């Protein structure tokens, strides 16, 4: 499948799953499941930073409009898209990334994925809750929400990836 088509379909699926399903779930304990960072993570290696930030902005816009969050998702997704190439450079192999591979845990190894996506998701989630709550006296609550939501969103990301890979192997 063409890369552009594949990522366009993913964009639609991820944005509407997030806005219509995961944003409507009320689990409690301050847990807020987020799958939209995984979409930014799974964009191809060779994509330049500026188009990626544009895509992140669009994605955030769609989610914010459908769930009345007014720019919260947009801001945190743009931050994540800005930080992604920096982290990829830092944790990348010496000879550069293989353009045939994708930044998934199956292609790049579980260790690499856990470290890079863990840091990116953590920063994204922390920025999100920091903006949303915006009170210095409640920093403990911000950390609690970040840790709970971050860990569960990470496990959800692993689950979604295993679905994507299984469908590929069957073909």
């Amino acid at each position, binding site marked *: 499948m063409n890369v552009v088509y594949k990522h366009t379909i993913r964009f639609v699926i991820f944005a*509407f799953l997030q*806005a*219509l399903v995961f*944003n*409507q779930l*009320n*689990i*409690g304990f*301050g*847990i*807020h499941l987020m799958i939209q960072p995984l979409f930014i993570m799974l964009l191809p290696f060779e994509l330049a*930073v*500026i188009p990626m*930030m*544009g895509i992140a*902005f669009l994605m*955030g816009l769609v989610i*914010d*409009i*459908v*769930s*009345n*969050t*007014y*720019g*919260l998702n*947009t*801001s945190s997704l*743009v*931050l994540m898209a*800005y930080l992604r190439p920096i982290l990829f450079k830092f944790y990348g192999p010496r000879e550069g990334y293989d353009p045939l591979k994708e930044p998934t845990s199956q292609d790049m190894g579980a260790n690499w994925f856990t470290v890079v996506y863990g840091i990116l998701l953590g920063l994204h989630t922390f920025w999100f809750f920091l*903006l*949303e*709550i*915006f009170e210095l006296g*409640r920093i403990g*609550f911000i950390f609690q929400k970040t840790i709970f939501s971050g860990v569960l969103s990470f496990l959800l990301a692993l689950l979604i990836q295993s679905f994507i890979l299984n469908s590929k192997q069957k073909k």
Partner: protein
Amino acid sequence: MRNLIAFLQRFRIFLVFAVLQFLALLWYTTFLSFPRNQYLTTNNNIAIQLLEWEHDLTKHFNLSKNNTDLQWENIYWRKRQPKFMYQLSRGKVKISDTLYEQQYTYIPAEVINSSINRRNNYFTLNVGTAQGIKRGMGVFCQQGVVGIIHYASEHYSLVKTVLTKDINIDVSIRMKKTDLPGLLKWDGRDPRYGMITGINNDLRIKKWSTVETRGGSGIFPKGLPVGKVSFTEPIEGQALWKVEIRFAADYRRLQRVYVIKNLHLAEQTALEARIPEED
């Protein structure tokens, strides 16, 4: 000039990042207090269509509980209707009453999108300016207060619920002899509990005393239930109570609400505009 171009080339990634962040944060900070453009809220055509589909799927989830609640409300009002009562004193002449005049009218609405676990939670209702909804009207459900209309488009409207950062609804704690006025706030932790600020600690507050709207600002009528006091604690260094209340309404499964229209609001604001400003 060449230096400037070189500078822009070098930092162009960061500049694009800064511009996009600025746009997003501008959107966030301005829309929280005053939304201007309906296309950036759920009130636009595409988003509302998606949410209508989603609502069609999920609206029956709490149907049984909601129907029971409505039935109980019907019984409550039915019991108060004169034609279902036994008349104790016969032979008196009934006079049509001119002592009372209707001040509030109610518009029924359905919640088609809601969230409760964010810092600022908004509900989308399926009524709009076509039904007479305006910004600033109060919204309540059968159990208690819900919020204030934040933005109204032609067929839909957005409610700023009591589960937001800066809503400030005028409430009072009703005890046996006194009414203590305060402001309703929410700390973002639990959608079942709210807070009341501005209550002096010279009076003791009984646990589980009722909290009602005060009706001062003309948005809500007097005496709508808000919740019950669940916890009080003196704030250190201030002569105030920290009061936590348990909301009467369960916002997690809210479906049917009423929008309040105050027929005397124009009169009240016109009168209050005559108060001379001190400068």
